[in-house]
């Protein structure tokens, strides 16, 4: 009987059947600009924020935190404005997540001062006794490796020159190590003395968290 005695024909036919749905719902949308719109108000990550994002990925934060606020009343109430497609134009990979063991983070930027994050990352339980988040104090003990920062932003096509990248890093370093930095006290508390004047992985991940949703919030206030 027909194709069940022709393995190669059978394989080709299976591939064709499998590729129909894939083409319509996945491959074609890849070439439609409407799938991932780009908007001028959404800015790419600075190289420090990008390094922070890479640490977020390394630690698998996406296993417990989502980054999509759905257009549902209670969700907007809890987290803020729902997520728009253009916000993710620079996200490679996307980090929407699939389970909320912790709260959504797409609107976390600007919600708390840096000092809140330093303390919370150092020991979530010291702020929320019953929280089940792992402590990440050790990130402050790791000097931030920026040796690939330029390569990373150029692979992602963010359009920064090598000088831009160096400038972003220097600027952020002077910001968090300055005497007038608003969260200086907490930062010094969680950061070992020898790294007080350097950028740490903790600094970078907090820079990243503060960027999440910032462009949308800026747009809202302008309105």
């Amino acid at each position: 009987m027909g194709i069940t005695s022709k393995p190669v024909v059978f394989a080709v036919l299976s591939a064709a059947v499998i590729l129909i749905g894939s083409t319509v719902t996945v491959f074609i949308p890849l070439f439609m600009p409407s799938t991932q719109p780009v908007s001028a108000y959404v800015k790419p990550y600075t190289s420090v924020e990008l390094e922070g994002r890479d640490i977020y990925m390394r630690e698998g934060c996406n296993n417990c935190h989502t980054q999509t606020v759905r257009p549902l009343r209670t969700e907007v109430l809890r987290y803020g404005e729902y997520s728009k497609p253009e916000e993710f134009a620079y996200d490679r990979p996307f980090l929407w997540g699939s389970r909320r063991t912790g709260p959504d983070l797409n609107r976390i930027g600007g919600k708390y001062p840096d000092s809140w994050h330093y303390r919370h990352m150092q020991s979530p339980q010291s702020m929320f006794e019953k929280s089940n988040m792992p402590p990440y104090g050790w990130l402050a003990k790791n000097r931030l490796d920026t040796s690939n920062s330029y390569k990373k932003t150029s692979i992602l096509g963010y359009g920064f020159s090598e000088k831009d990248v160096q400038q972003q890093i220097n600027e952020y370093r002077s910001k968090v190590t300055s005497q007038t930095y608003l969260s200086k006290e907490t930062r010094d508390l969680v950061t070992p003395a020898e790294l007080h004047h350097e950028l740490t992985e903790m600094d970078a991940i907090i820079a990243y968290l503060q960027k999440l949703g910032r462009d949308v919030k800026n747009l809202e206030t302008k309105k």
Partner: protein
Amino acid sequence: MSDAGTEQYNYKIVRSFAFSALFWLVIGLIVGLWIAFEMFNPALNLTPWLSFGRLRVVHTNGLGLGFGLAGIFATSYYILQRLTRTAIPFPRLAQAHLYLFNTTIALAAVSLMAGMNTTKEYAELEWPLDIAVVVFWVMFAINVFATLIKRREKQMYISLWYIIAMTIAIAILYIVNNLEIPVTLFKSYTVYAGANDANVEWWYGHNIVGFIFTVPILAMFYYFLPKSTGLPIFSHRLSIISFWALNFAYLWTGAHHLMLSPLPEWIQTVAIAFSIFLIAPSWGSVINGYYTLQGNWEQLRTNYLVKFFIFGITFYGLQTLQGPLQGLRTLNAFFHFTDWVIGHVHMGTMGWVTMIISASFYYMIPRITGNQLYSIKLANTHFWLILVGQLIWTITMWIAGIQQGAMWKATNPDGSLMYSFLDTLTSLYPYYRLRFAAGVIYFAGILIFVWNLIMTVRQSPMQDEAEQPTQKQELQSWG
């Protein structure tokens, strides 16, 4: 055809993959228990390597790619040889496949614990390991197609269709989703951005579950159920319809994982429609399984393997109803991001997948070693422990999911939120404790399973050196 009886099947490779599967099963479950404990006791996040965010992916990859794939390779190499009455044409390639596979999974576990994680679910491995996966997959595919081309049996039985479909689909899914640009040896970025990346990822994520946890498991079901009962499959026609409909519809449904997300709405809606459609071919196999036992249901009592198959296909049936339903927008708005989905997945993996692989191994291992199964009594204990463990596990998570979903949505009369996020989380801790206990019961069942098979092989170590004489009388064709 007359020389078929003298042909020596390669059972060594079957056995090696079967025991690789058991090894990764035990490792994956230990990690699972560890992270289940971390969910209510964060003190267990002892070092970065043991933190939840890193270990969770070791659990999913260890069981999905380690246990799942090894189980599939073991049974596929067996089924292929038996149904074609042809030995694997390239035994050395198969042996290399075994070594590369186990090395890759071991490196996967270590690299994920070290934080080399691309974060795309079930595709977290960094690019050098992605290449290793593709290489061992090609090694497998070469033997699959070479065996099929050399076959001595004209017709390919149902199970072979499913093995063909899996071989092709996983290659396409894995390569497309893992296209990435390396930064260093240990770091890369995907080529897709934002919504497109999400769409590609969940097309992969949904279908890799389909083509690892459904399609090859159906291949086992269609082969080992008739084999161990002596009853032919109820309807050949139904299996043809189910096969093509399943393969066609599955690939449209990935976006039901992205309901109410910034992904274009039409992709979400198409996914819902095809998810509902998918109930039909899924239940086609369920019905085919049930009706195969028509008039012979007493085997559920007399044949210890039938329990695994029938309960397994029942969980498959339940899961394939639950999945499409929770893809509907209204239900999804409530259940998505909660533990309900975790319960859903584990009914499939702990119920359907593990039960069918268990029964397949119980059938296969004694036949390839020429020994009797060490203990049917232990096999029955194994069955009841994994059944009870799994049911407590999944039902607990469903209840936890309903509770958290409701708490997220609860508002006061003035319209403000009733619960802080932390309230909704801490209310789940009792369920997490119960889930851990259920996991322990389940794990005990798995240890018995592993022990039973080790003892089966150990009974007469002489026999597996001198190729078994018993296989000769087993040669029968599927017309």
